[in-house]
């Protein structure tokens, strides 16, 4: 997956649309829907939800923020940009598509949202 190596002097990370991680939320949640015809199965759960769908504020989220501000060394803000991007990816703002369920659980800070974009019928 692309990291901001700035080939053309841009600070924008531009992953390819052919990478599944970048479009899976659009594919599953968007597009023209005629409910009667949508028949999706998540059998095997090969694909996990990516970042932004799960946003229920919870104790876990608050504890994580508390931990983050506590370990923050206010004097040390001199890390380079590539490091920051690597950390952002690790911290669960975005996840690549993996076969495992662990990634999905990591990006869930609380209960899963009730409204699932895909459903089997």
């Amino acid at each position, binding site marked *: 997956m692309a990291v*901001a190596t700035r080939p053309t002097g*841009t*600070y*924008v*990370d*531009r*992953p390819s*649309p*052919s990478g*599944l991680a*970048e*479009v*899976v939320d*659009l*594919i*599953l949640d*968007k*597009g*023209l*829907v*005629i409910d009667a*015809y*949508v*028949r*999706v*199965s*998540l*059998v*095997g759960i*090969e*694909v996990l939800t990516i*970042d*932004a*769908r799960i*946003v229920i*504020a919870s*104790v876990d*989220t*608050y*504890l994580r*923020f*508390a*931990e*983050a*501000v*506590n370990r*923050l060394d*206010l004097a040390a*803000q001199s890390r380079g*940009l590539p490091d*920051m*991007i690597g950390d*952002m990816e690790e*911290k669960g*703002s*975005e996840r690549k598509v993996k076969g495992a369920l662990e990634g999905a659980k990591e990006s869930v*800070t609380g209960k899963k*949202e009730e409204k699932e974009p*895909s459903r*089997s019928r």
Partner: protein
Amino acid sequence: MTGSDLCAVVATTEHDVVEAGRANLLAHSDVLQEVVAGRTVVPMRFGTLLSDDDAVRSELLDARRAELGPLLRLVAGHVEFSLKVYYVEDVVLSEIISTDRSIARLRETVKSLPDDASYFQRIRLGELVAGELVRRRAADADALATRLAPLAKASDADDERPELMVMKGSFLVSRDGVEDFRAAVDDLATASVGRMIFKLVGPLPPYSFVEFEVEAGVVA
């Protein structure tokens, strides 16, 4: 396959559900990317299944002509860009600690206590930080939208997103306007370097702009 002046791109399956596995999702995405490179396309929801070609013609293309026509016209000559902007966590948290006194004080209190004595304070601290993040990102997201919305025919932003995600937006951009749009995103990213990370995906087929009930224009 075609039904008079509208046509549909279909794949055939023997199953009666579509498994949301990697292969099927990639196939869906790849076909749409290929089609949108050269022509106007309305993406159907992944897993839309009809019984056969005739059903597609009669139940979809003919029966829904009144809705499909306007959607095709809306997106003709346009592509979608998905923009996700994130805070650099340590930077924005440092900003918050240094500007918000009650948060700074509570942080000091928590640091002075062992973990098992500070459980409720830590929750409160985290809650205050989360609240402050949501406030700050509203202003930052607004500034981004103000700059980018004029470069798009329509835009859509998700309100639901993690606290550290400043913006999750989709933009319907004319093919001719793509370079200007990209340049504007570049400018914004440069101006925010070290504080925000920008991730731009596109050109995409117009996934986010093809709901039946949605009108053209900015969707909150």
